Structure formats: C-alpha cells, structure tokens
C-alpha cells in the first residue's frame, strides 16, 4: 500500500561524509564469508548476507526559507538463514568479524526457535552463484555530489515563482537515495551494487481567506532511478497539452508556474455533478491506479495469503491463472513486470536474494498470464527459477517479495490525447495523482487527482473540483477502450510503497500512455463541517 508520508530517514550525516566510498569491497567479502561460515557452522543449510550502506538526503523548504537539510546514513549487516527448514534473520550495526559471526548465530537461533512451529519446510528455487559481480544505476550526475547550495537555490527559486504567481504557501523538497549494498550467499554469489534514486517535488496551496476555502496542486514530477540529471530540463522531454507534462527530464520551475495558476483556478472551479463519465487518464495519474489495481494483486505472496494480516490478499486467485482465460481487462490491456527498465525506480542488476533481474508478462491481451514471485514461492506456480523481485528496504530488514516495475503497454496504433478528447461526449480528463484507497483483495478502489477537466461534446470546457472515481478493478480494466501510442508513454512512480510487518518501503515505477475508460462512476467529495 502506498504510504501517506515520506519514509522516515535514518540517522544524519554531513554531506562530505556521504562522499566517502564506504567499506572496501575486499573487506565486505571477508565479512560476508565470516557470516556465511558462522551460519553454516551453526547448522544453516542456506545463508545470505547483505552488508548495506544506505544514504539519504532530504532538503525541505517552504516559501523563502530552508527548513531542514538532513543527510542520513545507515550502515550494518543483515543475515538470513535457513535452519531446520525455517527462515531466521538477525541484523546489527556492529561490523567487526566477531559481531558479524554473533549476528549469524542469532539468525540461526531464531530459525531453530521458529522451526518448532513451522508448517512446511522452505523450498528455494535453485540459483546459480555469479561469483564476484557488480551493477550500478547508470546515472550522469550523482545527486550527493551536487553542492547543497545548487539544490537550495533551485527550491527557493521554485518557491519564489509560486509566491510571485499568487500562491499562499509553497512547500518544496528534494530527496535523494543511494543504496550501496553487497550481497553474498552460500550459492557462491558476491554482488556489489550502487543504486541511485531522486525525487524533487512541491505542493502549491492557494487560500481564499474570506470563504475559508483552500486548494493545492502537487508537482507533476516523478521519483526516478536517476541522478541529478533528472532536473536538467530538455525540450524533447516536454509533453505539450492543457498543461505541460514530462518524460525523462523535469522542469521544476516551469511546472510550479503552471501549478500556481491551476491552484488559483481550482478555488473557482465548479463542483462535479456525480454520475458516469468516460475518463481520460494521464500517465501522471494512471500510474497509481496501475500500482494498486494491477501491481499489488499480481504479487504471489498476497495471492497465497502471506500478507493477509496487513496489506491483504488478492482476487487473482491461482484458479484464475490456471484457467488461462481469466479476462482481467479488455484485449487492449497488456501489462509487463520489468526490473530492467532504464530510469525506473525498480531497475537493479540483481535482486536482494542474488537473482539476476528480468522482464516478464503479467497480463496479455487482457488475460492474466503470470504473477510476481521470489525463490521460496517459484515452485508453487511451476517456475524453475525466481522472477527476481525480492527486496529489503535496509540492511536491518528481512528481504521479501516486492513489486517489480509494473507497466501498461502503449497502444499499437497511432492515437493522441487530442484524438481521444475529440471522440468523447461526456468525460473528465484527469492529470496528476491524488487521494487513493483500495480494498484488501483489490476489488473496489477510489482515486482522486490533481486537476480535472470537464469534456463535453468533444471539447474541454473547463476545470472541475471535488472529483473522485470509484470502480471494481476487473470492470474498470474491461472498460478500457483506447490507449495512446508509444509517443505518449511516460513513467510515474511510488517512492514509498509500504508492505510487510514490520512495514517496509519499496520504490517502484509504472509506465503508461494516456488511456481512456468508459462509463466510470464519479462521486462528489465536497462536504461541510
């Protein structure tokens, strides 16, 4: 489930410390071998170790001031074992050889304590060892190497533009993440990875003091698996339309000017008449609907009941997949899971249990064809190997199945947003993500947005307020009647998708082109207190 707030960061460090390269890879290999040997010596039949150094930087501003600059670092070792057929895990920030060995022994002790109440022994899909390999997010500019002043200047200029445009308040932030993680296992892999993500964003608020009404408009940026180059705007990445939207680069200053104008318009926009509308959904909005209604229900651990106590199960039960004819959506609907897509949040070389990442189909021509599974689940759906989507948010959390990038494929024939609007009699064009909620089996959902444009007789006639749409997942995806072509394809994403107990955060992207759904129920969300 998407969490309502940004993830809590770890302890703070200063920016210079963030540039330190971390522990030498030879030392990490030695520590990893200590952990693996100690686990084996205590009776583990399998062990893996993750030596992690996680850096975060958050710059938080409002109006004309910088509220906080926090550089945080978290470093330690997490060890997972199978002993007596049961998983055990232990973690510590103490990284001497003695402490690492003790942590491995604790993991084995946890596994043995729990084996007494284990229902069935863990079955791991085979995984060959890769030896010593490495992978790095192909960034152009390391966000941690960009001077703090450049970032605060950018955010404060964004804030100044909003105030000049009449905004009552503006909050802007830039988050950067660098996961330096080293994985080793008794399968013979020693994998060193350096992963980068960045998320610049803002919220403009306009207040009408006399009426007490206020409205806000969020940025149309996306969190991405890129470096600071994401903020170097290029003309070819701008998508023209009623508001400019962005592909692989983002123009924050341009977007805040649009956002301020739109927040002003939202205050005066007419309230929506509830009823059925044809919805035209921009990728900046649709990514979240894909995330909740396609990404989560195709996670195999949910299908099997492992998430029943928190995030829930799934309506996409095994019998539907086994039938090979469960019509999840219309024939236009093709969805892929992809851990390789450049610029995406989920792109890595290897997952957190040493499996090389890949791309696979989930929905083909509207039919459910596959799930997302990891090593201890693969056998359940007849796979000989994991699909490589195992992840832990930090060294001190145990890894488990997390969502790959799940994306709706663009239409195969040429189709623009203007063409869709021309063919719409009564509709709403929605841009940006807003409120979101879905039930624990992923049937019933409700989504809001940032801006809503009323379409009447083939034309946009103005802005609407108080819009949210409700639908049943399968009915919604079967009402999909048009998908724009590849030229409109863009990524959106979640920086903080929550799942598991204790809850862990995952970052994942979702691509799509603008898509039309016919006859969806829209409610009016205005109330008086």
């Amino acid at each position, binding site marked *: 489930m998407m969490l309502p707030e940004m993830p809590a960061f770890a302890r703070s460090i200063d920016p210079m410390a963030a540039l330190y390269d971390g522990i030498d890879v030879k030392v990490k290999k030695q520590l990893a071998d200590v952990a693996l040997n100690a686990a084996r010596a205590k009776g583990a039949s399998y062990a893996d170790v993750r030596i992690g150094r996680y850096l975060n930087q958050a710059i938080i501003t409002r109006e004309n001031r910088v509220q906080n600059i926090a550089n945080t670092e978290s470093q330690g070792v997490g060890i997972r074992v199978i002993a007596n057929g049961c998983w055990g895990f232990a973690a510590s920030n103490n990284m001497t050889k003695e402490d690492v060995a003790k942590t491995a022994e604790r993991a084995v002790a*946890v596994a043995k304590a729990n*084996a007494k109440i284990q*229902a069935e022994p863990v079955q791991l899909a085979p995984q060959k060892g890769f030896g010593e390999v490495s992978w790095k997010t192909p960034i152009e500019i390391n966000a941690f190497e960009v001077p703090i002043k450049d970032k605060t200047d950018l955010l404060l200029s964004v804030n100044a533009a909003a105030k000049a445009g009449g905004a009552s308040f503006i909050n802007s932030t830039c988050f950067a993440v660098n996961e330096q993680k080293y994985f080793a296992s008794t399968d013979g892999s020693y994998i060193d990875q350096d992963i980068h993500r960045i998320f610049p964003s803002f919220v403009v608020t306009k207040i009408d003091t006399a009426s007490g009404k206020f409205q806000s408009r969020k940025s149309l940026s996306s969190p991405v698996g890129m470096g600071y180059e994401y903020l170097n705007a290029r003309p070819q990445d701008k998508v023209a339309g009623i508001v400019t939207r962005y592909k692989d680069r983002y123009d924050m200053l341009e977007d805040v000017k649009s956002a301020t104008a739109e927040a002003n318009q939202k205050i005066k926009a007419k309230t929506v008449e509830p009823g059925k509308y044809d919805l035209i959904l921009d990728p900046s909005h649709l990514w979240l609907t894909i995330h909740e209604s396609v990404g989560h229900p195709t996670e195999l651990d949910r299908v099997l009941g492992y998430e029943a*106590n928190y995030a829930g199960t799934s309506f996409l039960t095994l019998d539907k997949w086994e039938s090979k004819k469960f019509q999840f959506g219309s024939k236009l609907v093709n969805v892929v899971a992809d851990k390789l897509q450049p610029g995406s949040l989920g792109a890595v070389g290897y997952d957190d249990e040493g499996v090389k990442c890949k791309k696979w189909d989930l929905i083909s021509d509207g039919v459910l064809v596959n799930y997302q599974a990891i090593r201890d689940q693969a056998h359940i759906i007849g796979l000989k190997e994991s699909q490589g989507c195992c992840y832990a948010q930090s060294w001190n959390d145990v890894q488990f199945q997390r969502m790959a990038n799940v994306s709706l494929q663009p239409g195969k024939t040429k189709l623009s947003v203007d063409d869709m609007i021309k063919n719409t009699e009564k509709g709403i064009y929605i841009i940006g993500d807003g409120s979101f909620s879905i*039930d624990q089996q992923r049937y019933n959902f409700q989504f809001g947005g940032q801006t809503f444009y009323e379409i009447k007789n083939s034309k946009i006639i103005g802005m609407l307020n108080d819009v949210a749409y409700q639908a049943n997942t399968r009915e919604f995806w079967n009402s999909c009647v048009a998908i724009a072509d590849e030229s409109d394809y863009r990524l959106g994403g979640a920086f903080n998708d929550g799942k598991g107990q204790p809850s862990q955060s995952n970052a994942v992207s979702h691509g799509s082109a603008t898509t039309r759904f016919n006859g969806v129920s829209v409610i009016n969300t205005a109330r008086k207190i």
Partner: protein
Amino acid sequence: MAILTKEEAQTILKKVLGFSKADECEVGLSGREGGNIRYARNGVSTAGDISTLGLAVTSTFGKKSATSTIDQFDDLSLQTVVKRSEELARLAPENPEHMPLQGPQTFPDGIGYVPATAAITPDTRAEAVAKSIQVCKDAKLQAAGFLENTTSFNAFMNSKGLFGYDKDTDVIFSVTTRNAEGTASGYAARGFNDINKLDTLSATKVAATKANGSKGAKAIEPGKYTVILEPVAATYMLENMFRFDARQADEGRSFLSKPGGGTRLGEKLMDEKVTIYSDPYNTELPGNTWNRDGEKLEKTTWIDKGVVKNLSYSRYWAEKKGVKPVPGPSNIIMEGGTASLDDLIKSTERGILVSRLWYIRLVDAQTLLLTGLTRDGTFYIENGKIMYPVKNFRFNESPVIMLNNVEALGKPERSISVESYRSYLIPPMKIRDFTFSSLSDAV
C-alpha cells in the same frame, strides 16, 4: 548492548558535549533492541532479531545549525562527529525560525518500561504464536499474524545543561483468521507495554469467532447508516485527526481554520460527549514525559465536551502569536462511558457493526474527508441483535462530522492503529448517519 542506563547515557553525552566549540550544542543518544515473528497459512513465514545504537550531534552558530551522527563510540569517533556537525553548521543557511536551546529543568521519569517485556526471547515469541496457530487449526481456519516486541531508550543533553532520559517497552500483536474457501475473515489486534497483559490465545479466539460468523455475507445497499465502531476501527479513523496544530490552522489550511482568518480554538466543533486529551502518566497508556524541543509534557485537553480547548503551538509559533507554547500530544485518550460493546449493540434499532477499517486516506484536507473500507467482520444489527454478516463497504466520511453524530460512547480500551501500530485509549462508539458510498466484494 543497545539499551543504556541513565548513568551510562549521561556519561557519553557529557563527554561528547566536552568536545563542542559551537555557540550551542545538543546531543541525542538512542538505542533499540527487539524482535519479531510473522506467520501465515498456520506457519512461521519470517522472523528477526535486531539491535541498534546511535548518536546525533546538532551544533549551532547564531541561527545556523546542522546535525551529524555516528554509531561508533571511541573518543576519536565522538570528536569527529562533533567536528563534522560544526563544519556543516557553518555552511548551512540561517534559519529565521531557529529558537535558542532550553535551559536545565527536571523531567519526571516515564512509566512505560516493563522488565518482563524487555526479557522476551525468540522462544517467547514462538510460544505466543504457537497458541494463536493452534486456535486457528482447531477452528479450521488459517492464521496470518505478527508479534513484535521493542525495548528502546532515548536520552539527550544540551550545552545549557538540559538532560532527558526515557526508556520504554512495547509489544504488539495482530492476527487475521480466514477460512480455506476465502469466504470468511476475522481480526484482532492488541498492544501493551507489559507482555503479561498480552493473551494471544484469547485474542485469536475473538478473531476466529468473527471469521466463523462472517460466512455468507449479504449485500445491502450503501447509504447512511448508524454504525458501531469497535475501538480498533474507531482508532484508525480518528488517528487522522489527532494533529491539533495551531500553525496550520492559523495559516488557513486545516479543518481547524476559521473562515475569514484565525483558528477555531474555543469553538464547539463536535458533540458534547466528545472529550480528547493526552496524559503521559496514564497507567494504561504511558507516554513520553518530554520531547526533543526540551519541553515537559503534561496532561493537556484538546477537545473538551466538543469544544476545541487547546491547539499545539511550537515554541516559534507561540512566540510569533504571543501565546504560551503547547507541546503536541505524546499519547491520545478519548473519554467514554461505561457501556460495553454488547450494550451498544443492544441499544441499536438498525445499524452496522464495524470490526475493522482499512486503507484510510485523506480525500479533502478542508473537511478532513476520509475514504476507506470495512474489513474482517461487518454485521447487520436489528432490534439490538446481530442479525447477519454483510458485505464490506467503502465509506467517505469525515471524523469531524462523525464526532458530531455521536449517539453513545462505550468504555475506552487500549487499541492499536492497524497501520501505524501506535496505541491509543479509545471507546467503542455508536455514530449515526455514517456514509457508506459503495460495496466491495473483498473478504
């Protein structure tokens, strides 16, 4: 060992402050030890045992400040962390809202630490979960649950001589019970400082009874209904409201903002049966006795008989507005009555009993309109009796409107939020005209 005594913490903090050359310096030290066990399909899925200890140094020159941290405790590491924070503070932009550090004062000890909880081992957790799994096996249900215990301490000291130390323990447990066909589901959640109060067997029996009673749910029309929210449902709904922030209200962007400007402090905003306060010394729900701004936390009433009695003022905002600072709550207690859940059901002519709510998110900040769904046991009540299970609903409702429509409140009990896992003391409540906007097929 990640849990230090007051004296051990004091020794380290004094040593670190001795290295400081800044105008002002504050040092925080915190440690956490604990473990968890997770189970599903009547077997263990994952489990862990984790300990961490960390130190944070904030140095200030004028109105420029910065923080640096470390998790190594030799003298060289401690000197380095102080030096790093001072170097960064000199580079930081001035913060016009910076407030000077507080001077010495005495904070009373908290009451949230229970040695028995601190002594939990992996075997203790496994035994507690084994009882829960056995209940489900006996009831021919599948259990999925989670148990986590934490012992933590926080200490801080500043260059003006202020020192604070707090230590507490916490254990949370939740279980979802489902039948093999996927047509029935129940839930129970518990949270305590004291492991001795946790009974996983009886909690799982409650969940199992709900699951077996929820088979064959009927679809009834969505619309406005009288609802009885069990504490775990009410807690999650109200958790979104417990930010009584004066600044947001003054700025005009909160449900506590007054049209035309100012806040709704002193206005009657809810039914007169509603009183909400915080009290760190409540024995059922102990809270922190101080916060990181160096403020002492005491009993504070936020809503008194429906009237907004206090808003939280940071030291900066209080100075700007010329009022006394009011620290935010470290726990939340809502007063109720003496009625049991059964009493509330018996007094209901027609209504819906809601066991749990799910995936609550803000729809409109102006009115605090929330959407979410019922889950794991939703039942139709007629003439004071539970008649049959009903299919789950999506709701669109504001907790502010809801607390205007209070028919009756039961006896408050300690309950945890199903999303944040924070504990609250909240009564079961009967609410009229609660808005269900659609049906869900989810079980």
